[in-house]
C-alpha cells in the first residue's frame, strides 16, 4: 500500500508541480487553486495510465482530494 501511495504522490506532483511535497497528501480542490477542470482531466489520464484502470470522468465527482483519490484508486486496484 505504501508503494501505491508513493506512486499516487508522484502522479500528483507531476500534475501540480508547484505544490510543495509536504502538502500533496492534504491537497483538495478547495485548497488548491490550480486544481481546475483541465487539471482533473490530466490527473485522471495520469492515474488511468499509471494504475492501468479506467476512471469514468463524469461519474467521478467525488475525486476532489488526494484522500478521495487514494481511496478510489486503492479500491479499484484491489478489484483488479
Amino acid at each position: 500500500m505504501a508503494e501505491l501511495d508513493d506512486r499516487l504522490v508522484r502522479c500528483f506532483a507531476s500534475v501540480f508541480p508547484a505544490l510543495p511535497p509536504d502538502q500533496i497528501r492534504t491537497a483538495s480542490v478547495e485548497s488548491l487553486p490550480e486544481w481546475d477542470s483541465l487539471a482533473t482531466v490530466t490527473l485522471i489520464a495520469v492515474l488511468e495510465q499509471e494504475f492501468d484502470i479506467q476512471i469514468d470522468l463524469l461519474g467521478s465527482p467525488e475525486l476532489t482530494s488526494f484522500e478521495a483519490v487514494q481511496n478510489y484508486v486503492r479500491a479499484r486496484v484491489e478489484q483488479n
Partner: protein
Amino acid sequence: MAAGKRFTAVNLNLLEALELSRKPAADGAHPLRSFLACGFTPLHLQTFLGAHLREFFPEARIEIKTGLYGDLAGSLERLNASGLDALVAAVEWSDLDSRLGIRSLGGWQVSAFPEIISSARAQLSRLERALIAAAHSLPVVVSLPTLPLPPLFYTPSYLGSVEKAELFSSLANLALTLSRERGIRVLDSQALELAAPLNSRYDIKSEILTGFPYKLPYTSTFARMLASLLSNRAPKKGLITDLDDTVWAGILGEVGVDGINWTLEHHSQVHGLYQQFLSSLASAGVLIGVASKNDPALVQEAFARKDLLLNKESVFPFEVHWKAKSESVQRILKLWNIGPEAVVFVDDSPMEVAEVQAAFPQMECLVFKKDDYQAVWDTLVALRDSFGKASISTEDSLRLESLRNAAPLLDAFGQSGSASDDFLKRADSLISFGSAKLDKDARALELVNKTNQFNLNGVRFTESDWSRMLSDPSSFVVVASYRDKYGPLGKIAVITGKVLEKRLHLNAWVMSCRAFSRRIEHHCLKYLFEKFSADEIVFDFQTTPRNGPLQDFFVELLASPPQPGLTISRTSFFAKLPPLFHNVEEKENG
C-alpha cells in the same frame, strides 16, 4: 531499427512526459519558443510535445504556446512570428469543416456533402496561405489529418467514394504545395502509419468528454515525430560497405567475377536492392567507401561489369586488401576527413562488424543479413532515415568529386598537412566572397550547424536565430566559395559578426574540412580586415572537444593557444600572413 519502431520504442507515458516537460532547464539555457496550432484542446499533445522537444533539444528551455480551440486557421492567420522559434500545426478533419468531426452536429445528410467538400477546400486554402506566410520567418512542421474520417458518407467504410477521394485529393495537393516550401516539413503519413496504425489513434470518449481526440500512446508517438521533424538533425555523411555477400552474392575470390550475382534469377535480389540503394545515396551526396578483404585486381574487374548497379565512380575510396577492416575504416575516415559518428559501416560478417565497432564505438555498425529479407528491408529504411535530408544542395553533388580530387593534394601535403607555396601557386584557385544576407542561403546555416573541426566556438543556431541575424542590419554574414584546378568545393566557409567602428566582432566562423590546407582561412581574415577597414578582430572563441584544427590555426598565427576574447590586430595579422595565391572575386550574394 525500422522507422515505425524508432518512434514507438521511446514512447513515454503521461506521467513521464509531465515530469520531463516540467524539469527545470539548465541555467542560461536558451529558449525554444514553439507555437502548437491545433483546432482541438492541445492538452496532452502539448505535454508530450514539450517532453519530446526536451529530448531533442536538451540544452533548451522549451516553451509552447497554443491557439484558440476550434479555430486552427484563425490561430495561424493571427500568428505573430516574432518571439517564436518554431510552429507546429496539427491539422485534423474537423479543422476543414466541423461536420467532419464529432463535436458539432451540423448534419451528415447526403445533400450536405457538396457544401462540406467545398468548405473543406476553402479551409485548406486558408491553411495553405497561413502556413506559407509563417514559413517565411519560422521553421514550420505540419501534420495533415491523422484520424479516421467519421462514418458520414453513404458508402461502406471499406468502399471508396467520390467525396472521400475529393477530400484526400485536396489534402494531397496541400501536402505537395507545402512540401515545395523550403521552410515547411510535412509529416509523412506512411511513416506515421508504420509507427501507429490508424486504429490505435482515436479516443472518441476523450474527444467527446474533453475535446482531446488522441489515445495517450499515440499522442507520444505523434508528438515524438513532430519534435523529430523540428529537430532537423544533421544526417550522417558516409557509408563504408563490405563487398562479398553484401554488395553482391558470392565470394569473389572463389566464384570469380562472372560468378557473383544480385538478381531475381539468382535468388540474390536483396544485393541488387542494396546496390541500387547505395547508388541512390551517392547521388544524394552521401560518401560511399568500400572496405573489403579481397584481391584488388578482381574487385577492379568486378566493378567493370556493366550490369553492376553501383558504378565505381560513385565509390571513393576502395580499401581492398587482407588487413583488418578497422584499418581500412581508419584510412577512409582520414581521406573523408570526418568523424566516426557521421559514418555507418555495413558488412555481412558479424565478426567484422564487431571488430570495427570495437575500434570505433561511436560508429553505427550494421550486419547485412542477406538471408533475412525483412531485416534487409528494415536496414534500408533505417539507413534512409540516417542519411535522409530535406533537400539536395549543390555542395552535395560536389562532395565526392572534391574528395577524389583532394587525394593527390593530400599526397602533395605529405605528413605536415600543409601545402607548399609552389603547389598553391599552381593550383589556379579562386575564392568568391559574398553575403548570405541577400539570398537567405540555407547552405550557410547548414555549414555553421554541422561543422565541428574548424569552428570558432561550436555554437549552433536555430533557424529562427539565423533568420533574426540575417534581418539584423548591424550584423554581417560572409560566405566563401572555393574552386581550383582540381575542381569546385562549393560554399566552404561562413563568418558572422558585427562591425563596431574599426573593430569586428566575430560570433561564428566555420570552414569545411574539405577546404583545409589551402590558406583559405588566412584569406578569410585578410578579406575581413580589408572589406571592413578594420583595425582589429575580436573572436568569440571557445575551446570545444573537436575544434583542434581551428586552435592549430590560431597557434600558428599567434604562437600561443587562443583564449576566449581573442583579439588580433591588423598589424600583427599582416605581419604573420603567409603568401596567398588565390584569385578573389566578390559577389553580391553568397
